[in-house]
């Protein structure tokens, strides 16, 4: 991460966390403490997406655009 060259790898990790949280949120509809905290965590994950994933998705890493 020192020279920010591995944004793709960081993005992979963000997407994995997001996927796990989405599963938790949908699997636990009758378990508010689980589903609502998962939903709240997803809002924070969105900030990681805005900071990192968008750069990768829009192909704007050092090799892109």
């Amino acid at each position: 991460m020192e020279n920010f060259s591995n944004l793709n790898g960081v993005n992979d990790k963000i997407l994995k966390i997001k996927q796990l949280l989405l599963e938790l949120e949908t699997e636990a509809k009758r378990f508010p403490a689980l589903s609502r905290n998962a939903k709240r965590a997803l809002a924070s994950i969105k900030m990681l997406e805005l900071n990192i994933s968008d750069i990768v998705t829009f192909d704007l890493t050092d090799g892109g655009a």
Partner: protein
Amino acid sequence: MMNYQEYWNPVLETMPLEKLKVFQFKKFKRILNWAYTHSKFHKALYDTAGLTPDDIRSFDDIKKIPKVEKSMMREIQNKDPFPYGDALCVPLEEVSTFRQTSGTTGQPVYQPDTWQDWEWWSECWSFILWAQGYRPKDRVFIPFGYNIFVAFWAGHYAAEKLGCEVVPGGVLDTQSRILKIKELNATAMMATPTYVLRMADVAKNKMGIEPSELSINKITCAGEPGASIPSTKKRMEDAWGAKVYDHSGATEIGAWSYECRNQRCGMHVNEAMFLVEIEDIDTGEIIEEAGRKGKMVITALDRVAQPCIRFDSKDVIEWDSEPCSCGRTFRLIKGGVIGRADDITKVKGVLLSPAAIEEVVRSINGLGDEFEVIVDKQGDVDRIKLKVELMPDVTKLSVENFLKDQLRLKTNLGYLIEYYDYGSLPRYEVKAKRFKDLRKKF
């Protein structure tokens, strides 16, 4: 060599401008598509203009998208779902926070936010606070009334996110707040310029406490342009012995610009989260070059509950010609927000900005912080009355000529000046109302 520790997001904040433009365009398309498919208001607006998101194929096409005026947002609120109306893009149960505008320019506008939007608010503020040197070791005192106005709420949450310790100075009175800052050795503070000066005045003149001897070393301002007006910034910095930084934001937009530690007398636009266009006030032409003033049209690129797309903010700004030496590629607006298109009014045929009068009054040591400007008519002729306070032991004679000359020099206008004893003009706790144009009543 660039010091990456200076940036909240070192990749976005130093992204070459060309790439940043691509980034903004792709995000613009995304939020436009979201609004078109989720908000009746936006769909009708774009359908009426004969446009769909697919018609926006290049950055230049963005200006085809109709602007949204504040008055339109007021009308929307009369429609379902209550109380927000049909610009709402999410089910009501997804809305987690209510805020409203202060109503300075008319009926307040209600602002719904989801929890994701609220995270986004504090993310925008995190760019600001990190750039201004807030770090986990800071103890941040926030002396504002936590209520329906967004003010420093997101600053509070952002400071927490950064790892700072936050002290909410909610319903305490001014003296109690000063005592709390002293008791806790708070290192940073957020307030309007009016209140920063008011607190210093109360500390010094009512409590015998010298604010510059307190532990505050940085102050973030909002709500008024004062922290970008050199003489007001100097007064605040001298009074508190602290660095004073400006930032600009609005309830229906978000926190969109900030001054960095270089204090270049300008603010960086957060171009990763917002798209700022400057439009010629008379012709509507988009101004790309530096040095030409216009009004801001702004898009919040990631706000989902009630999108802000090409919002006509009426803030008057201009691009700076020079990049900032901090290394950020986010462009600077010169001198911050210069005024509002509806405040900058013609008097005797000359454009008058209240900020220009503030710059003159606050640059004269013999005058107090407070002043009032009243524009009215004497017969058919416009008249500007300026009320100022003389500091104790200062005579009218010692400041009068200099004040008149400076006003004439900076504003090209003559004034009827009234002098008052120190402490006799109204004091304000949040935003001040120092400019009154009474000509509309004639």
